[in-house]
């Protein structure tokens, strides 16, 4: 089998551009999900009336439907009833909608990991609720939450592969084009896999390293 190296070299810039776009969209989606997740977990922690049911409903909806459908609904569905959105906005909104519930779950796990006695200890020296969160709950929850947050980030970056379905020129879409137009299937797929490995492997390894460091500081092992 002949590998068309010339084609690979000439297509590389296209892939680099697409990879950047994937990264950008994922980063925006992750940032938005973190915010949504944090808000949701605060609502769940304080059990604010009315909002709790809303948040729980959102989480169930978000976790039980596929990203593809969420994005199709946003891009093809909502735009028909008046809302206009660019493809990139849809992609980020879809990722944020899906990611928010995953992040909320991660935060919830972290908050629950902080034992009641540590909280009472904090209350006994007169810490206010806000101070309690800042000095006791968040730092301790962080060590437990970090692995989940990291895993969610990697998950969302992988899910970004789906947004090519609405004609965003990210990695999958570019690959489809190259296969469809130039029939350089092997080369296109090779570039695709390499691109994703370059995006994901450092993240995955970096996360494991960070996890280990944080766990050592917190638990000493």
């Amino acid at each position, binding site marked *: 089998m002949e590998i068309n190296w010339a084609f690979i070299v000439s297509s590389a810039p296209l892939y680099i551009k697409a990879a950047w776009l994937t990264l950008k969209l994922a980063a925006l989606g992750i940032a938005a999900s973190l915010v949504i997740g944090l808000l949701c977990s605060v609502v769940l922690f304080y059990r604010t009336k009315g909002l709790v049911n809303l948040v729980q409903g959102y989480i169930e909806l978000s976790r039980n439907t596929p990203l593809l459908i969420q994005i199709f609904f946003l891009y093809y569905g909502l735009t*028909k009833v008046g809302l206009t959105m660019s493809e990139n906005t849809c992609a980020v909104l879809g990722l944020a909608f899906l990611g928010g519930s995953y992040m909320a779950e991660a935060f919830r796990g972290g908050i629950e990991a902080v034992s009641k006695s540590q909280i009472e200890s904090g209350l006994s020296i007169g810490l206010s609720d806000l101070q309690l969160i800042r000095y006791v709950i968040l730092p301790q929850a962080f060590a437990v939450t970090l692995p989940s947050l990291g895993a969610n980030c990697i998950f969302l970056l992988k899910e970004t592969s789906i947004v090519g379905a609405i004609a965003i020129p990210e990695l999958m879409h570019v690959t489809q084009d190259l296969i469809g137009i130039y029939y350089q299937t092997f080369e296109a797929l090779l570039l695709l896999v390499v691109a994703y490995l370059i995006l994901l492997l450092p993240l995955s390894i970096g996360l494991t390293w960070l996890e280990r460091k944080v766990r050592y500081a917190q638990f000493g092992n």
Partner: protein
Amino acid sequence: MLNSGISVLVEGINLQRLMLGLAVTVRIALISIILGSLLGVFIGLIRSSKSKVIGFICRFYLEVFRIIPVLVWLFIIYFGVTNLLNIHLDGEVVALIVFSLWGAAEMSDIVRGALESLPKHQMESGLALGLSFWEVYRYILIPQAVRRMLPGAINLSTRMVKTTSLVVMIGVIDVVKVGQQIIERSVLKTPTASFWIYGLIFVLYFIVCYPLSKWSKNLEAKWEN
């Protein structure tokens, strides 16, 4: 404008076709879940074997399927393998292959986690009571392992059902593709069709997945201790 659109759902045989599409989705999901679970349990069991080589191969297999997005795998098998081997594979077959392998990889990790979380001394305690090696497995270890695996396995199944939505990208006529076809045909008559069709598909996926996740949560809570 909104009201006129909903009629597209009940026009002609639209609903029937959507349900047929849903059947394809469910079929792919079900077969992949079964095959994936069986393969996954097997791999999970041999992973903890003494041989370092086997352990490494299993670990490699798991990581490869985890790090590369499922959609990329679908492309690799659908476009790549068929191109290499000069055979034509139906999109549905490709989906079954990819999902089974991916599901097996994830399942093997769940199995491994369950086995590792079993208290170490159970075998000794069982033997001390006079049970044979296999009896300990049958009455003590396996029931406990199953309990620890089940919530994760159900969770994985839910994820697999959601991922079947991707098969539309490799040409399978599943519920999403049928929806798209209906929308294309109704574009003149009912411009808001896409809102209703995708909305319905959204709800359909929810109806399938929500009971599964609830079941998983209930099992977890029940077996908390």
